[in-house]
Structures are given as C-alpha cells and as structure tokens.
C-alpha cells in the first residue's frame, strides 16, 4: 500500500465515505484510466506502431521504442513533432501538453501510421 492509502485507511469510515463522494476524481476510482502515470510506450516493430492508437491525458509523455531491425521515424502529419531517425533500440519521446488527436507516420515508410489521442 502506498503512504497515501495507509493514511486514508486510518480515517474513520464515515469520513472516508464522505471523502470518496466529495472527490470523485480520485485516482483510485478511475478504473479505465490507461495512463495516469507520466509515460506511455509505443513499440515499433515489423513496420508497425503498437498500439496503433493510444489515449493519454494532457501532460503525458509518449515514448516510441524501435524494436525493428530497420530504422524508422515518428513524424506528426500536422508538423507538431518530428523525430530524428531511430535505429534499433533507439527512443524518441514527446510530451503532449494540449488535448487533441495527433496522427503521425513514419516518413521513411509512410504506410506505417498511428495516432495519439490526448484527453
């Protein structure tokens, strides 16, 4: 248990219930939140981005890792970000501060496409 949850656990039950009701945004309640942590990874392999679509909260950092035996790039179709060429095991990261949908592709092999949805 984290320190935070230990502290909460020591409170009397009614107070706990009140807190849970008052703070619906508490991380412990968001069962479907994929990435409340800062980092999301996308693996590049076999000429594809996996997962092809990721959803992250604003402020999250997405890191692409190239596990393919061929170099690739990560280029936003709207010109928002553009990686240098990534050889095998190299990484590229970008922090998404604004909400929106960010389609991207590999400029070397343009059939490879993906998108990052920032909520």
């Amino acid at each position, binding site marked *: 248990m984290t320190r935070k949850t230990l502290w909460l656990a020591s409170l009397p039950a009614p107070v706990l219930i009140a807190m849970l009701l008052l703070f619906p945004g508490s991380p412990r309640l968001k069962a479907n939140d994929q990435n409340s942590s800062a980092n999301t990874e996308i693996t590049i392999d*076999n000429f594809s981005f996996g997962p092809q679509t990721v959803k992250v909260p604003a402020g999250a950092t997405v890191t692409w890792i190239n596990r393919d035996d*061929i*170099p690739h*790039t990560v280029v936003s*179709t709207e010109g928002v970000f553009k990686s240098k060429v990534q050889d*095998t095991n190299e990484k590229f990261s970008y922090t998404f501060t604004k909400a929106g949908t960010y389609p991207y*592709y590999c*400029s*070397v092999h343009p059939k490879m*496409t993906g998108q990052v949805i920032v909520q």
Partner: protein
Amino acid sequence: MPDKKQDLIDQKLQDLNNDGVDRRGFLKCMAWAGTGLVWTLSGGIPVSRAFAKTPHRSAGKGGDFSFVQISDSHIGFNKPANPDVTATLQTAINKINAMPHKPDFIIHTGDLSQLSKPSEFDTLDQVLKGASAKQTYFVPGEHDMLTDNGEQFLQRYGKGTKGSGWYSFDHKGVHFVGLVNVANLKGGGMGSLGHEQLEWLEDDVKGRSASTPIVLFAHIPLWTIYPEWGWGTDDSEQALSYVKRFGSVTVLNGHIHQIMQKIEGKVSFHTAMSTAFPQPAPGTAPSAGPMKVPADQLQRVLGITDVQYVVSGSSLAIVDSPLVNSGASSSANESGPTRS
C-alpha cells in the same frame, strides 16, 4: 512464367505458415532466388537465351553498349541478415569487373546507405573506386534521405540535378531519366514523384523521336507491386503516360530487394536484387524488411543486373545474376522449390 511464380509464392506462404518462421528466421527454400535468364524482344516476341550464351559484345561497336544496375547496398547495415554489407558490395563490384564485356557505366537505384551517415557514403565511394566502370549514376532511396532531407546526398551525388535530385542524360542514343520518388512522402502513402517533377518529366521527353529508347530509373517501383508494404508509387501512372508513345521503355527500380518483372506493351519493368540482404516475397511475412537466410545461401539471393542495348533490337536485354551461382542450371531452379 507468371503461374510458376505464383505457385512458388503460394508454396512459400504455406511453408512459412507451417514452420511458424517469421521473416527474421530462416528461409529454407531458395528456388525463387534470381536466375540468369536473358529476355530479348525480337519483333515483339520474347525470346529467352541461357545466360552463358550471351554474345560477347565489343564496346562501341555500332552503338551497342551495356551498363549494370546495382541497388540497395545499405552500407552501414549490420544485423544478422548480413553482418558485412560492404563485403557483399565488393563481391558485386568484383563480379562487374569480371564480366566479359565492360559496362559503360553503373546505375545505382538507391538506398546507398543505411542511415545517411557520411561514413557510409564514404565507404560506398571507396568500394566504387575499384569498379572498372568509372561512371556511376545514382538516385536516392529513402534511407539516403534520413537526415536533412537528403541534402548530403545531393551534395555528393546530385550535381546538376533538379529538385530532390532528378535528372536526365543521353548515352549513345538512349535517353536515361533518373527520378526521385522518396522525398516528401505522405502518411499512409507509397512512393511519390510530386507535381514539380512530373511537370519536368513531361517537358523533358517532349519532342523526342518515338524511336528513342527510354530508360527510367527510380528507387521505389514505378508500378504497384504490393501496396500494403508501400511497394509502388502513387503518381507513377502520370509519369508513364508521358512515355507511352515511345517504342522502347525500360523501367529500372530497386527497394524491394528481389527481382520482379513485368512487360506491358512496350514498357519493361524490372526491380533488382540488393547487394546487401533479401526481403520476403509480397505477403509471405508479417512485414517487409531484412530476411535472414542460411549464411551459405546469402550470395545467391544478392546480385547485379546487366542491361544490354543492341541498336537493331527493339528493347534492352536485362540479365540478372546472383553474386554466386547456385550450381544447378536455371532449368532445375524453375522446376519447383526444393527443401534443403
């Protein structure tokens, strides 16, 4: 011939499915690898001759000449599919130097380097210095455009070219056009020539006599081979329409690291083997990319292409040969796949 190729492709697909071997694993059946087959068109009828019987041509006799196409040297690549691509390129150059007739020049259809690094281009230049043919014409592949949008490639190999590196030249009555279809690629698309280059091409061939043999060369195939893997050029139709009226058009490409050929009317399309590593046949692996083969088979799936022009002929003769012959005759290769 197309049916046999399809049978071989189907067989490969089945083999791969049963083996569970992905493209980075071993391919045991080598039968589809390039063979030495000469096709010429005589009065519009294809005539094939065994490689060994190709007549010796003396340079400069009556305007006949030959040149060699090499492709996809990928200098700098060092993964299992071929840990020493410089050595296999050297083998290719040695093979060119050993040819009975000296080619007038070499055409490299792109992916000279793996990562567009200066050291990689330097190494390539060093190897090419040892070629008997002193002139090499280049077009870039996507691997040569990885840094600075191909600026470095242009500085080294693009003198006198336009835009992203396109150009044309005449040699003994044949008109050669180097096209660039690896610049400004759009997401979800394949190769692309772009409006400016197409306009230039239309103008370049305009007014030339229809009896002028035309050779177009570009990295990515100028016909659609397998769109799922990006093996095609989105706007090649328009380019080909500009040369439709000519009596002999030869299209030389690379990129796919295997031989594919098609004849459509007076246009002959040909893709060359790589001098670095092979790639899987369309649809026979999860994706394109380097394909590992047993070490003793590697030089059978890498190769060069000899192209001969005969003044009286109506088309250029294209002869592919692997770096090392399989030992079996070409008829044995065509009888079907064999398990080794």
